[in-house]
């Protein structure tokens, strides 16, 4: 997994990072609202 990430192009890593970040933010929001 780490190797696959390291061999991704910069823009693919960027896109992955943005979507992961957005997903984490939404999950945190849900956790906040459901607490």
């Amino acid at each position, binding site marked *: 997994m780490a190797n696959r990430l*390291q*061999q*991704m*192009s*910069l*823009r693919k*890593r*960027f896109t992955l*990072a*943005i979507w*992961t*970040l*957005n997903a*984490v*933010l939404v999950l*945190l*929001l*849900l956790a*906040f*609202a*459901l*607490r």
Partner: protein
Amino acid sequence: MKQFVFITVYLVAVTLPLILSWIVGGPPRSFWQEFASGLGILAFSMILIEFVLSGRFKSVSNGIGMDVTMRFHQFMARTALVFALLHPLLYQATPVGGQRPWDISRQLTITTDFSDLVSGIAAYLLLPSLVLLAIGRTQLDYKYETWRLIHGVGALMIALLLLHHTIYAGRYGGQAVMMWFWLAMTGVAVGSLLYVYLLVPILDKARPWRVKTITRLTPKQWEVTVVPDGHAGLSYKAGQFVWLNLGHSSFSIRENPFSISSAPAAGPQMSFMIKELGDFTRTLDQIKPGTRAYLDGPYGHLCVDGRTEPGVALIAGGVGLAPLLGILRQLRLTGDPRAVKVIYGNRTDKQIAYRAELDAEDVTYVLSEPPADWCGETGFIDGPLIDRVFPDEECRDWIFVLCGPAIMMDIVEDHLLDRGTPADHILSERFDYG
């Protein structure tokens, strides 16, 4: 690794107000009320952090690149916009009205006091306008300086409006701990603007430069050389860029980022290869030697200093040659033993700059619109061309430095990765952030 640290620090900073609000707590409310508040909290903290992602802080973008920081700024602004737009819509079915004596801290109801909401409504209208104006900047074709001013002033207004709205209308923002936290965060955001537009110009003013020469390289490309005026110059690495202000006050927003095409080893004077593209660059022919200049920088991570690969591949499209020329010149001036190959793509042969200098190197010129008598490579810089220039062992072992149009860099990067070039052997910098 640096990218992971960047994302982690961003995530912590952005979610800190949400987590603090969580800790501060209050009586339970319905899911949608909490979700709506959470959206507002996240949107505001994301907007405030956008200020320090605005491309002028080396400590923020160190290692990941100013271009990546800028694109991150753009993408997260879109997320913040979505969160902000959804925020008021999800309060449906929440009791509304003016201040109630039994709910003075707005734990269970939503205020409808106009004085509390007006700032939020104004920000609600301003934010999409700011984001849309930024996204459509190139299509709308208004002056770069005008856009910078609108963007800076608009962002500042939104931050202040949201601060008021959060403190006076927010359930969590009204509490003392959160109020001080939001004040501190807004202070950092506003401070970052003051740093860029006030402190940096004050420091730059004490270190003026003068234009030494301005030379037309090709019909639409110029070389501007500046010398330090009364100081030792700037410490930089080959391949970096600066914000260059030619002929205006150091406080002017009329400054543009340009790659340094000279080498640090050549001395304190610095050269820039500039293509006529926008409002400022179209007026280059009016700049005279002796014109005062100010430089802010250096920025950028397109550097091969300290790298251990046996060879350096410099792949440039058009004016993307500028930083690579700086690297090439530094390698030559310092007697660097590493092998170097250059690929330089242009549309026509008239656009090839520094031809005499490059002819002394292992260079491959590529033209997409070659003249009839052209004997070199034709078409675009693509995979098959990379295969013809670089054998397997060079693809595997060398460091590749790319600068040029985004499409060229995408194609070359993908091809190199397919051929087994480690991702950390590929350095690139984009100047079109769209």
